[in-house]
């Protein structure tokens, strides 16, 4: 049976993991490769590396980092952050990334979704959406790391992106991100029930029960989290055992 995926996310700046990590067993907690290897060993199903490096010059370090990750990690991984052109994608895939994630650049120029899907295959094109539920009760798309609101409904943008060739949706709820109060179940379930591609839920996972909820009520295919894994508030083996015990199909 196809299993639900647990995906740790590592934020990378200038080739180092940021957002603080708290692993005493690591020699260097800022080394994304060492952290990624540990997660892979613990049973993470995939990994996401999000590059938040500010300057273009330092982005070159990303492809070098991706190459090192690909040599070390034996599970699939996605790379995102600042990807705009076919050349950007080609370099990352050539260096061993399995998928790339695009967000604001795809909103500004949706044709890149189509060209990436045509040239590299839909299976490697992940569309990331930052979304927020406004006072009117509707979910809107936000850009630039959540700093810029649009008037576009998340359901509409997600459908358009899938029609253009996006192979997966990484949905982050800004209302839930950082709260540790659980994932956004309603919008996740809406997208998962109406779109033919897998939905990765992100934002709000604070304890094992939240993951159970997002895989059942939220109908998510995968769930992503960062700090709860980095700070060891929740260990991946414990989380997966919990979900397995509750009857969720999980890779142990």
């Amino acid at each position, binding site marked *: 049976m196809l299993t639900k995926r647990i995906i740790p996310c590592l934020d990378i700046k200038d080739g180092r993991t940021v957002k603080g990590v708290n692993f005493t067993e690591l020699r260097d907690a800022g080394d994304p490769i060492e952290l990624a290897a540990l997660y892979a060993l613990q049973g993470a199903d995939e990994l996401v590396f999000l590059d938040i490096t500010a300057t273009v010059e330092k982005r070159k370090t990303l492809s070098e980092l991706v190459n090192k990750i690909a040599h070390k990690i034996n*599970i699939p991984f996605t790379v995102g952050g600042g990807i705009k052109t076919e050349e950007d994608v080609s370099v990352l895939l050539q260096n061993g990334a399995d998928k790339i994630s695009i967000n604001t650049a795809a909103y500004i120029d949706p044709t890149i979704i189509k060209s990436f899907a045509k040239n590299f295959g839909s299976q490697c094109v992940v569309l990331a959406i930052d979304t927020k539920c406004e006072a009117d009760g509707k979910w809107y798309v936000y850009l630039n790391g959540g700093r810029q609101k649009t008037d576009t409904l998340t359901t509409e943008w997600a459908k358009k992106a899938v029609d253009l060739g996006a192979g997966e949706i990484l949905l982050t709820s800004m209302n839930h991100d950082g709260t540790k109060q659980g994932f956004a179940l309603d919008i996740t379930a809406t997208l998962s029930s109406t779109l033919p591609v*897998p939905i990765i839920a992100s934002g709000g996972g604070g304890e094992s029960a939240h993951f159970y909820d997002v895989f059942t009520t939220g109908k998510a295919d995968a769930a992503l989290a960062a700090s709860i894994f980095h700070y060891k508030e929740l260990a991946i083996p414990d989380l997966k055992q919990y979900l397995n015990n509750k009857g969720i199909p999980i890779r142990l």
Partner: protein
Amino acid sequence: MNTVIIQYNAGNIQSVLYALERIGMTAVVTDDPTLIQSADKVIFPGVGEASTAMQYLKERNLDVLISELKQPVLGICLGMQLMCRHSEENNTHCLGIFDEQVQKFTTSIPTLKIPQMGWNTICDLKSDLFTSVPENSFAYFVHGYYATLGKHTIAKTDYIQTYSAALQKDNFYGVQFHPEKSALVGEQIIKNFIAL
């Protein structure tokens, strides 16, 4: 040990090379017929679309060359599908090494996503390719088309229906999943192939 990875217009070729390097082996990535023919082991990877890939192989006579190889050959994902007789993906006539047909996943259940993407179990394992690989081990799959069950099936997986997770005929092996991305299980399968 001289292992060759066939280079053609399909993705994930580097990933296969890196996977070999992770387990202390190496390989040459090439489309040179002489190097392919003289290799001890040949890996035929692939992510992409069937008709485009077949056209590319035919233009370089690699279709005939692959079919006539005598050493162990491992097709991965699209590579395995291309070793079958026919694919429904753009109605493509393939290499015909395996009799099994490649068909499109179809379902009316909206929560069953197509392509299948993620970890699923492999069972009814019967080949040296699976030495030391327990029944119901997890492997990583990404595919919208599948090979039917048949006499060459050496592993099965369930998604929408039961299909061939792996095929074997004589020196030809094929796996639908990605051993290069299937953690320790995948590494064992690659080691087993190299040890054939």
